[in-house]
């Protein structure tokens, strides 16, 4: 029983980690909170529902479609809401926060109008297949989610640490001006960051659809809030922190549902924010230096 719950928690946690990665990438490079990330993720989930449910495409095609759609959304987000604010005089640091809130309500209500308010089922062909190991039941869906998340995290880590674009991204995150002097095309890197973060959000959307078997326009907000809680928990802009924070939140939520009051599962993320802000405001993996920069 406990072991099953741990497996459930790790599955959920790996999804949370992926959502948080999208937030943390954008925050690391641009220093802003992308409030629209939750809704981009929700759009990814709806692309999954439409392609697999209505059009009958296989799952891997759904992933590609979601990545394409959310990447385009990410580009539009950067082009029309973030770029106009950058380098403009007299714009407060809250302006990008407010304009991404605008994007988030726009996307949520557009999909409300298009898809309706209710939950949409997300059918995966192998949703009923499970493996029994002793007394424990593990669903194939859980394994698929876990493997995809791990591959994504490894891929992102390798990309950030080994490739030229990844190094340029980290340089930009460290110091935009210095990176620009050293010949990094920071404008391109910023676009790349937002697009990659959004594409990761799109993948996360399909994974959530698979895990919960339902998709609704409101899920962007609750998932987005959890993603934000995780990046505060793990340290803003910290990739490792996002992964560990995601797992911690996933496990604690699953444990609460199994052994406590499930109605309050959405409250855990917030309680974590308050506790972490009191005890260790820079987050588990955050450093004091990066705090000073803000």
């Amino acid at each position: 029983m406990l072991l099953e719950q741990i497996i459930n928690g790790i599955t959920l946690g790996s999804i949370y980690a992926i959502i948080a990665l999208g937030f943390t990438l954008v925050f690391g490079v641009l220093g802003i909170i992308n409030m629209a990330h939750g809704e981009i993720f929700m759009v990814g989930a709806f692309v999954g529902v439409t392609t697999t449910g209505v059009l009958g495409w296989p799952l891997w095609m759904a992933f590609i479609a979601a990545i394409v759609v959310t990447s385009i959304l990410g580009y539009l987000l950067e082009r029309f809401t973030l770029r106009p604010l950058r380098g403009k005089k007299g714009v407060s640091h809250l302006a990008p926060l407010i304009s991404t809130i605008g994007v988030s309500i726009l996307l949520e209500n557009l999909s409300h109008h298009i898809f309706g308010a209710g939950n949409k089922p997300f059918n995966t062909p192998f949703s009923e297949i499970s493996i029994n190991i002793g007394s424990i039941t593990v669903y194939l869906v859980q394994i698929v989610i876990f493997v995809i998340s791990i591959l994504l995290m490894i891929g992102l880590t390798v990309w950030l640490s080994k490739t030229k674009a990844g190094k340029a991204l980290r340089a930009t995150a460290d110091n935009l001006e210095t990176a620009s002097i050293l010949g990094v095309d920071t404008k391109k890197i910023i676009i790349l960051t937002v697009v990659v973060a959004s594409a990761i959000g799109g993948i996360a959307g399909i994974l959530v659809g698979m895990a919960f078997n339902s998709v609704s326009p409101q899920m962007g907000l609750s998932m987005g809030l959890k993603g934000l809680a995780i990046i505060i928990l793990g340290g803003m802009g910290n990739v490792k922190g996002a992964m560990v924070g995601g797992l911690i939140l996933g496990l604690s939520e699953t444990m609460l549902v199994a052994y406590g009051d499930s109605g309050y599962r959405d409250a855990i993320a917030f309680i974590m924010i308050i506790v972490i802000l009191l005890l260790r405001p820079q987050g588990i993996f955050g450093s004091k230096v990066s705090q000073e920069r803000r």
Partner: protein
Amino acid sequence: MLGEILNTYYLQIGSFILINIMLAISVYVPLSSGQLSLGSAGFMGVGAYTSALLTIHFDLPIVIGIIAGALAASILGVIVGIPSLRLSGVYLAIATLGLGEVIRVIFVNWDTLTKGSVGLTGIPQLGREILEFARGLGFEPAMIGIKNNQFVFLSIFIVLLTLVIVILWFVVRQQNSRVGRALSSINQDDKAAESMGINITYYKVISFTQGAFFAGLAGALFAHVIGYISPADFSYHRAVEVLIFTVFGGSEVIIGSVFGAFFLTLMPEVLRFVSEFRYIIYGILLIVLMAVRPQGILDANLLKKIKIKRSKGGVR
């Protein structure tokens, strides 16, 4: 005579506008010290539920319920504000956004007290109580030639109008005081303000708590004007709506919040077809505003120009 002029529908819209102005001010005050609060809906909910529950279960007078509601919201504001205000404004935005959602989750789950997502009904209505009170003094609405329900709506409107004027007076007075100057210096540059000897955490908590107080007050009044509340009234969307009042109207000057709340509450009433697409329009509005005019429609410069024009006209 008076009975023919007073239209209860217009009075009710007027009351909503006044409540929304209060809410817009609750966002404006923290924002004037550079703090973005996304928890106004949550504070509003705390005020509304506190007041409603106290008046329903303990038969307390509405006035005490409303004061208790506003105080409960501001106590919560202090509790949340102190840990998050030590950090940059972004943390506060996230913490308040989370707070609002958690308050809603609690309202939905605490069935025995809040009746869950069904909501509370039978909340004593402010207008009716005033009518009872007036009758107790030997006053009948018919004496000034209006019907009972006209008197009810009119009295609510007058009470709200008085409160809004008092709040506006307070905020304007505060802005020109030592506190107000400290707040605006924190907004301009908190490091510089700190080096000038201003205790920035103290002043930030003050402005944030005032915001929570106004939101709680507006929530409590909302409960007693409508007579029915449910957790859906205090969702994240309400918080965003209130934020838009302030940001659209102009977040640098107090009159901006008033204008924003007035215009955006009236718009869906006047243009019926807008109502369905309201949130889509709000979303586009926020994006365009931040890109084109981040300070909102009204700002200090525009007000100065209007004033100069007016005084020139006066000379002629």
